[in-house]
């Protein structure tokens, strides 16, 4: 059967960011892939045109499915009394740095782990998912001010954590071409932090 639409192009654009987000919500990469698969199929069935205005709904689906999966997983893990084993080391954001970025990526990944999960969620959805604070607020059921505040606190925390390696980070970053298109298929709307 001819699927008659270019779902693959849309999926390849969105899936890395979705997977990054899902990995913060469930225990393992395999679980995150399951979540992304279910969410995308559900979303595409509803919006087969792949319209970018419906992308927040896709992230919302990832969130809902991931939280459902985590709840059932928590029950299972609790029953089997091996709670921390599956989770350890699997909850970190996962990047695909260029060779010259590897050191920077490790530093930033560690710094991101120092954020609370709520702050990390906002940073991920805003910077990599390209969602506005309003869209993130709708997904998480919080107010826009709360979301903006979390983002601001997250940047403050990162500033403090990264201060000791400031020169190293900025030097290496300035020597690299910054290409945002590969991580932001849809540009976020400009917003002003309150």
């Amino acid at each position, binding site marked *: 059967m001819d699927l008659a639409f270019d779902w693959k192009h849309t999926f390849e654009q969105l899936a890395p960011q979705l997977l990054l987000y899902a990995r913060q919500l469930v225990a393992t990469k395999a679980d995150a892939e399951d979540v*992304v*698969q279910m969410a995308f*199929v559900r979303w595409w069935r509803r919006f087969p045109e792949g319209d970018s205005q419906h992308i927040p709904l896709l992230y919302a*689906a990832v969130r809902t499915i991931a939280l459902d999966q985590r709840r059932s997983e928590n029950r299972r893990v609790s029953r089997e009394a091996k709670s921390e084993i599956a989770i350890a080391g699997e909850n970190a954001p996962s990047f*695909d740095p260029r060779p010259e970025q590897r050191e920077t990526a490790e530093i*930033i990944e560690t710094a991101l782990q120092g954020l609370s999960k709520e702050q990390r969620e906002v940073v991920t959805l805003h910077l990599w998912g390209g969602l506005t604070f309003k869209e993130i607020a709708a997904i998480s059921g919080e107010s826009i001010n709360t979301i903006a505040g979390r983002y601001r606190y997250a940047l403050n925390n990162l500033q403090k954590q*990264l201060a000791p390696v400031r020169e190293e980070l*900025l030097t290496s970053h300035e020597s690299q071409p910054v290409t945002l298109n590969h*991580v932001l298929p849809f540009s976020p709307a400009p917003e002003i932090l309150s």
Partner: protein
Amino acid sequence: MKPEIQASQIENLLRSLAPAAISPELCERVEEDLRLEMGWLSQTVKKPVTKRWLFPLSYVAMGAAAAIAAMSAFSNSATLPSSLSPKDVASSSLSTSGVMPVSTISEWDDVQDEGIRYTADRLPEKHVRVRGTERHLYIDPRDGAEIIVEYPREQSLVLPVSFQ
């Protein structure tokens, strides 16, 4: 004390890191799922409607039939068959519980011509019994969850007939 990095510099640093690419296996799994899903939808939408019962009718009866069919297809207060369970009826009212109705697909699987009968006033009318399935698709706008409710449907149509 070392100076902090500016917020905009941190944002640029983070954005410059690309999330890890997805595995080809994940892409294949999604493709397989979509094929199954879209195959189901395609079969549902494209299934031809039985029309054989229309041919014996006169043009007048055909016009009346079209009007009745259109009314029943677009009516939100479609009569439910008596065989429906209370659970089915509850499911059909999902639109009032926060979910959003997306589509309704009616399929007529069997049409039974019950012949021409005469009213008390000796006027002829054609009786037709239509059996099929009605499928409602709902979506929860909060999380994108989809709900499909399907139930059998049976209608008895009475069509005016004029002999020429």
